[in-house]
């Protein structure tokens, strides 16, 4: 029976395993190099790129306006007040950092597990990490009230004879997030050096030759360098793995060290990390699907990548579901009046809609991914990735806002209604993220060419007279 999915008719399916291939068959070292480098080295920037770039740029303008007004007036323009002193700023900080985590997971953890399919998507997943961390980093600083004094957080010998206080999770955050940002940039850049060498050698324009010549630090592909490079990559992957787990754990400690009902729980670190990876993979798909379509990269970012990302989302989504149920169970099992009320208020209080919307987006709808037909459907996956991103935003919203609006004493209860500056700043960071991403796909190789070459069957050194295996995996 020769259906559309059978290996006979579909060249993207591996005849042996029946799985989708990681790279379409028939590629050579030269063809993968050209496919990736022509996106960067072309002198004809596509009109679509200009359109998106301008649009994102104007949203960055909105961010500038919001931040400038914040500097002039102070954080009173946001809806933060007592009891909700952590409004959208912290919701968005946690959300953005979480999105970044999938980039590190793909580049580091999947490298250690020798998951070859990660090779086509790791570069832009890492770029996504960096831009997401940049967006995230803005919020706690803007939320300081006097952002220009943000450097007080760092230990430095000041004339005030003042030093930071290291027993607070907020202080640990400074080190976790700054380390995360630095290591992500280093890992990303180091991985890019050989590809920048390729671009330097292939660039036609004087500016291109100079620019890529400068940032490729004179890479010449010596095997001695390659051996050290591989060691350094593995070491960085081994370092980034515990780092990424620690970053969202430390962020969750900002909440769970506090005594507030709904925050003071031990499930937070693992559940925050799983949620981070969940939303990050959703963002990878949100970005990868349009890019692969627009730049015709279906040969390199295949259905296999999309399906695997969906499987990771399904798995992490279930961990997150376990986290939610554990919260509900613990609030009952604790026999604490306040915990019990907190959960009731979360579900049926004035902001109950957000809890049920969260359950729908994060737990109910993603179960559709169990169906292989839907997992390998690009349009469906794209919509699902948007739903999950919304769901993860709602999760942060529920955790931060509903817990804060209902304190221990009814006299200190309050409500929260975000202002237009809250929305403007959030929209602005989305624009900033997209703006950086547009620059990245235009000027830097978004798919690692050297790693793709390594995955081609002709890359293997073989003893003479050994036959060449089937291309593709």
């Amino acid at each position, binding site marked *: 029976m020769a259906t559309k999915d059978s290996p006979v008719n579909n060249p993207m399916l591996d005849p042996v395993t029946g799985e989708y291939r990681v790279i379409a068959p028939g590629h*050579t*070292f*030269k063809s993968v*190099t050209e496919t990736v480098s022509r996106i960067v080295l072309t002198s004809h920037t596509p009109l679509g790129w200009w359109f998106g770039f301008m649009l994102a740029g104007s949203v960055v303008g909105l961010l500038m306006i919001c931040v400038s007004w914040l500097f002039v007036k102070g954080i009173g323009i946001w809806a933060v007040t007592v009891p909700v002193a952590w409004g959208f700023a912290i919701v968005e900080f946690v959300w953005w950092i979480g999105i970044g985590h999938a980039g590190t997971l793909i580049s580091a953890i999947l490298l250690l597990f020798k998951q070859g399919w990660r090779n086509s998507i790791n570069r832009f997943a890492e770029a996504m990490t960096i831009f997401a961390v940049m967006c995230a980093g803005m919020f706690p600083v803007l939320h300081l009230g006097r952002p220009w004094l943000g450097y007080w957080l760092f*230990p430095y010998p000041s004339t005030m004879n*003042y*030093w*930071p*206080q*290291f*027993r607070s999770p907020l202080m*640990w955050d400074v*080190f*976790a997030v*700054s*380390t995360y940002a*630095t*290591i992500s940039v*280093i*890992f990303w*850049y*180091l991985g890019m050096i*050989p590809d920048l060498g*390729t671009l*330097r*050698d*292939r660039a036609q324009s004087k500016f291109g030759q100079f620019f890529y*010549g*400068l940032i490729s*630090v*004179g890479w*010449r*592909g*010596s*095997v*001695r*360098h*390659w*051996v*050290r*490079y*591989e*060691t*350094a990559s593995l*070491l*960085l992957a081994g*370092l980034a793995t*515990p*780092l990424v787990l*620690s970053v969202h754990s*430390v962020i969750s400690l900002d909440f769970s060290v506090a005594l507030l009902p709904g925050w003071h729980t031990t499930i937070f670190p693992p559940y925050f990390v799983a949620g981070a990876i969940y939303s990050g993979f959703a963002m990878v798909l949100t970005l990868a699907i349009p890019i692969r379509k627009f730049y015709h990269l279906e040969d390199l970012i295949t259905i296999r990548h999309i399906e695997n990302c969906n499987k990771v989302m399904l798995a992490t989504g279930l961990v997150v579901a376990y986290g939610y149920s554990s919260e509900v169970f613990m609030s009952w099992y604790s026999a604490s009046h306040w915990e019990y009320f907190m959960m009731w208020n979360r579900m049926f209080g004035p902001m109950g809609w957000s809890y049920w919307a969260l359950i729908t987006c994060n737990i109910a709808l993603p179960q559709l991914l169990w169906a292989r037909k839907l997992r390998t459907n690009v349009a469906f996956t794209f919509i699902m990735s948007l739903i999950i991103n919304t769901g993860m935003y709602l999760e942060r919203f529920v955790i931060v806002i509903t817990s804060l609006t209902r304190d221990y004493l009814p006299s200190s209860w309050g409500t929260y209604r975000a202002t237009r500056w809250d929305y403007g700043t959030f929209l602005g960071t989305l624009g900033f993220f997209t703006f950086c991403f547009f620059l990245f796909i235009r000027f830097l190789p978004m798919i690692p060419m*050297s790693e793709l*070459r390594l995955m081609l069957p*002709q*890359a*293997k*050194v*073989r*003893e*003479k007279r050994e036959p060449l295996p089937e291309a593709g995996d």
Partner: protein
Amino acid sequence: MPLPEGLYGLMAEFDSPTDLVHAARSAYRAGYRRMDCYTPYPVEEAAEAIGFHRDEVSLVCLIGGLLGLVAMYTLETWISVWAFPLNIAGRPYYSWPAFVIPGYEWTILWAGMSACFGMLALCGLPKPYHPVFNAPNFRNGATTDKFFLCLESTDPKFEAAEARSFLEAQKPISVVEVEY
């Protein structure tokens, strides 16, 4: 120091990694030591073939990580116990469990930076100019799809005519002279 002049080495170009590794093995067997292979992606067998077995990146990384841990932990202890002691809800000045986390982060930070910059330093990078770039066919292939073996003239065994006939016996696409 005057710039070196004359012949840097002889460069043979190959079409496949298999040919390169076979040529590199025979060159090593023939007694050449100062040579290098240039490939568009990591070919570990080629590094083995020219006798490059271990690198020091891991050691640099370990030292960096330990220094980072010691630096942060000492800083925290000094600040919290001597420089600026604060009573936070009656916790001891030396609250070691709380100090573990920034120490952990700095271990990773310093180890990662040492791995990256240590690797570049061990490779002698950044080095925008290198004689191999003078080979006319090098930049066309070395970072795309061709494999190169360069026998360097500083090798005591190196003698131009003999090295050329040795390389040509390995069936390369071409053998070219590389000038400084």
